[in-house]
């Protein structure tokens, strides 16, 4: 059983950690929340192996963890610290594109980051995202459209249909 989980973990963790990181906008919190999600899957193993969409399950558990009272207080504190440092954040700087993209991702609204993570990291369709988040497909489309516009600047190119 332990070997089964180890293989499962090794196979899924790159996508899950990347998706959680984009969805949360905070690398440290994403690392903690991803580990917690996998630990909870292991705690109920082997039921985890039978999940229809384990990556989506792990992402949602990780996001719920981030929203829990314990993690959320830390997230809010970091957000406020960033808010206090806002002038510095907006100072012009010649940053590598990855850093610029990361800053743009972190600046997206929470729902925008979640949808981008599901669409571009997990490669889910809009109906699948709508089902996972419990929102309409139209909301997914409008959220995605706005996020794309905000991220286009960081990619130093215009978005083209």
């Amino acid at each position, binding site marked *: 059983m332990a070997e089964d*989980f*180890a293989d499962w*973990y090794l196979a899924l*963790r790159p996508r899950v*950690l*990347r998706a959680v*990181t*984009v969805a949360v906008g905070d*690398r*440290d919190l*994403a*690392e903690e929340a*991803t*580990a917690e999600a*996998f*630990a*909870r899957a*292991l*705690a109920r*193993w082997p039921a985890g192996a039978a999940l229809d969409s384990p990556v*989506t399950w792990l992402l*949602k*558990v990780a*996001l*719920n963890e981030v929203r*829990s*009272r*314990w993690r959320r*207080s*830390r997230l809010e*504190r970091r957000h406020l610290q960033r*808010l*206090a440092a806002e002038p510095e954040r907006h100072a012009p700087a010649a940053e590598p594109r*990855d850093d610029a*993209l*990361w800053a743009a*991702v972190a600046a997206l*609204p929470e*729902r*925008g980051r979640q949808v*981008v993570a599901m669409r*571009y*990291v997990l*490669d889910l369709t809009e109906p699948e995202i709508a089902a*996972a988040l*419990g*929102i*309409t497909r139209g*909301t997914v489309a*409008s*959220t995605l459209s*706005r996020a*794309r516009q905000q*991220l*286009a600047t960081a*990619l130093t*190119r215009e*978005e*083209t*249909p």
Partner: protein
Amino acid sequence: MTAFDDELARALRDVPVGGYAPIEELQDRARQLHTRRRLAGAGLAVAAAVLVAVSSALALTGGDGDTVTPAPPVGTAPSSTPEPTTAPPAGPDCPGTWSERFDATQPRSMATPVAGPGDLPDEVRLLWAADAAPDPDQAYAMDNSSVLGQVGAAFERCPQPQPDRSVVVVQLDGDVVQRSAVISEAGSWLRVDPATARTLDADGVPVLVENPDASADDGVRAEWEAGGLAWEVQSEDLSDAELIELVRTMRLDGDSIDLSAWSVATGAERFVTGAGVDVEPGRADLTVVADGLQLTVTDEDRDPWRTATPGSREVAVAGGTGVLREVADGVAMLTWQPTPRTTATLTGDLDGEELLAIARTVAPVPADDQRLTEVWSAGAEQ
């Protein structure tokens, strides 16, 4: 997928991420989850049987107020007056607290955006006066009903969750907070990381203390188990000796935490029981953003003293008490309860007095208030 989509997907694959947890760490954590679950279940049975004794210390209990009698240890029901209506439901399939039930419902559905201000409860649809602060740039709200419904359905055969078992202890100098501590039931999930925590010994009870060096911005956080229940304390400033004294002297009287024998509580000017640490989550939360200002309102009963930290101020707002504090350099936050069932927080890069002046104008607004309707975002923002 467009060319832009392909490029964005490739770029996101290159965004640096953190490290992967070693599998041994996951195995340890999974074992803790099992262990804590078993302990919680066993503790309930033990509490019902009143078999546990973790301390022989004496404490004042109810009655005529003059009699000193041995108090039941934390986590045990009073031996003479068992309270079946407030006792946690038996068995791990019926978690006793709201947070445990939410934790146990995985994965949960997500909150959904509220279509417009008119869909909000009146007591949540609040805004500052038009002449007190700039008009909002953005307003949105989330509806938590589906999540609550899902969790409720998962435990429909269970009794109502137990009342919030928490206490906030605050020492004041005038209206300025000198020290504060929040003590609450920890639930079934371990919050302190044993890999980085120190362990204190309180008369044989191990107390896990999160290393302040590892998370200095969180102050001290400690967890321990007594009488089959798990407890936690969070404070900006508690010594090891005070933590040990807390564990030794704390008692549970029904659903109330008795700290009358803890020296930190003895010297406290404010002592709030049932502070709203683990209460029924709200069904709706509103967020309004203006230039340098953010207001959030939710229909949750959470006492503002939970947010007190050294340097916070006690202020009067909306006919009650508010807690005003600087949460980051130049950023002030004020938390208060506009009604007993709602909690509001106003944050801004303003002087505390300016923020307080704005908060004092916050009041219900009609569903068609143009300052909300013109900037309302139903779903695209959160």
